[in-house]
């Protein structure tokens, strides 16, 4: 009997290949997605007991195709339904393309909301069940089922053919995919749900295999690896956050750091640096420092400077820039930059802004103001461990003999 985990890993790997093959052959993206999922469920039930068939991919395609036939026949509403075919200038046959990549582009179609893009990507490309996705995003399974069903329908109705988009659309559509993968990763990272972060890494790795020369894909993969490398060390036993300066660096994932650093170094050499590459380069500088004191803050501040220029509207980048400047030129310089951000409500109501401000005030020796700022940050922090941590920081600043 083969391990269930082994079968599950194999099925997740094959899921986009099977769906790709079925949609390629017969179309019907929405029904094919259901049919593929049913084939995966059948395999998950049979293979651990009966053994993995000689050609698992062919087995799944055959079963999914048969399910598709059943679904199409049972759904009379689907037959005789008219929809408009997207007439595109005849570009000739499509070059050989990676089905997983085409599916990613379909799932991140611009007609969908990002919540729908994320859910559809995790199911159709990631091979997760609706129940697993619902659990990961803490929504009821029914809600997730409806979200996925609507999203699939929408993709189908958009009439987008199963093919790589043409030159003018291609870059924008790829950027949308990277953004969705990034959101899946940050969702996993923020909630410390390693499964989502791991899934984002797996999918980005897949995309990197399909587009090895795309430096932003490499940059995003590097950013994820270099960030996730600190996962074990960034929370304490009580799930309280541990700031980077206080983390046990021996618990950082050295293999991830090595791989991420190599990726971003190569990517930066190939062309003008994109947003993900710059962020990955910053993460690499943090990861490479043997101790917090060894951190190359001037270099980090310079990279943030580039990031701010590339994406001036992003308040989180500007916030991090201010912190890097504080570490380079002293807390007052950083605090002055935070003042400039104060007119942006999105930032000032965010616990990250308040936390950074509290840290800088503490560095500047403004104890009373720092204490207040920590409490204010705690009031906005989304999780209990974070709130506890921030109150504790405030508590440390209370004069002992008062």
């Amino acid at each position, binding site marked *: 009997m083969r391990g269930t985990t082994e079968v599950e890993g194999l099925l997740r790997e094959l899921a986009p290949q099977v769906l790709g093959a079925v*949609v*390629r*052959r*017969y*179309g019907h993206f929405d029904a094919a997605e259901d049919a593929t999922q049913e084939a995966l469920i059948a395999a998950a039930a049979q293979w651990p007991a009966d053994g993995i068939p000689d050609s698992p991919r062919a087995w799944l395609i*055959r079963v999914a*195709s*048969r399910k*598709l*036939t059943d679904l199409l026949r049972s759904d009379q509403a689907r037959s005789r339904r008219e929809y408009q*075919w997207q*007439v*595109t200038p*005849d570009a*000739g*046959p*499509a070059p050989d*393309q990676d089905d997983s990549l085409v599916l990613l582009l379909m799932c991140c179609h611009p007609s969908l909301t990002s919540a729908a893009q994320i859910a559809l990507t995790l199911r159709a490309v990631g091979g997760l069940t609706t129940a697993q996705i619902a659990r990961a995003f803490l929504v009821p399974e029914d809600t997730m089922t409806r979200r996925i069903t609507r999203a699939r329908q929408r993709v189908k109705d958009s009439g987008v*053919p*199963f*093919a790589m988009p043409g030159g003018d659309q291609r870059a924008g559509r790829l950027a949308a995919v990277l953004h969705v993968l990034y959101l899946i990763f940050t969702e996993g990272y923020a909630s410390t749900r390693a499964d989502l972060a791991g899934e984002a890494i797996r999918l980005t790795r897949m995309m990197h295999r399909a587009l090895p020369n795309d430096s932003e894909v490499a940059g995003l993969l590097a950013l994820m690896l270099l960030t996730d490398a600190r996962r074990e060390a960034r929370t304490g036993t009580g799930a309280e956050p541990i700031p980077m300066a206080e983390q046990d660096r021996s618990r950082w994932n050295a293999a991830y750091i090595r791989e991420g650093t190599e990726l971003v170094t190569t990517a930066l050499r190939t062309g003008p640096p994109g947003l993900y590459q710059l962020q990955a380069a910053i993460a690499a500088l943090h990861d490479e420092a043997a101790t917090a004191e060894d951190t190359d803050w001037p270099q980090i501040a310079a990279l943030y400077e580039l990031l701010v220029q590339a994406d001036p509207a992003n308040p989180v980048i500007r916030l991090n820039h201010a912190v890097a400047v504080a570490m380079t030129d002293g807390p007052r310089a950083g605090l002055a930059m935070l003042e400039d951000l104060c007119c942006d409500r999105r930032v000032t109501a965010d616990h990250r802004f308040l936390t950074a401000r509290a840290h800088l005030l503490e560095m500047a020796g403004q104890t009373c103001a720092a204490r207040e700022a920590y409490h204010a940050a705690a009031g906005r922090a989304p999780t209990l461990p974070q709130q506890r941590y921030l109150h504790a920081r405030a508590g440390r600043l209370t004069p002992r003999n008062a």
Partner: protein
Amino acid sequence: MKYMILVYGSQQDYDALGGNPAPGRPVWPPEDFAAMGSFMEKVAKDLTESGELVDTGGLTAPVHARRIQVRDGVPVVTDGPYAETQEVLAGYWIVECGSFDRATQIAARLAQTPGPAGVAETAYADIRPLAESREELDL
């Protein structure tokens, strides 16, 4: 993957093509007929160049069809088995291409074959996957 694109017509459509339309059917002037021919040739040439064309052919008028059946173990022939208005297979394209969507794109191009007003409105083509193996017939 192979797909067959099928187009249909009745004996009346054939008559119209030959310049002898039934009442209410559009007439095909010789220049329209020629334009259709050169359009089809162009498509065939492009598909040959892209390596996607397996075969294409037009079928002669339905009146020339011969049907064979077996009755009581004996083969029986019927000449001209179709009614005048019955739509039957008139032509086909077999293409080998990367996806159903690509085959559909080719058919969409064929659907824009030029012709006299009124013809395109009633014409249609079907696209069907050709089974790659006996197993696929079983799906």
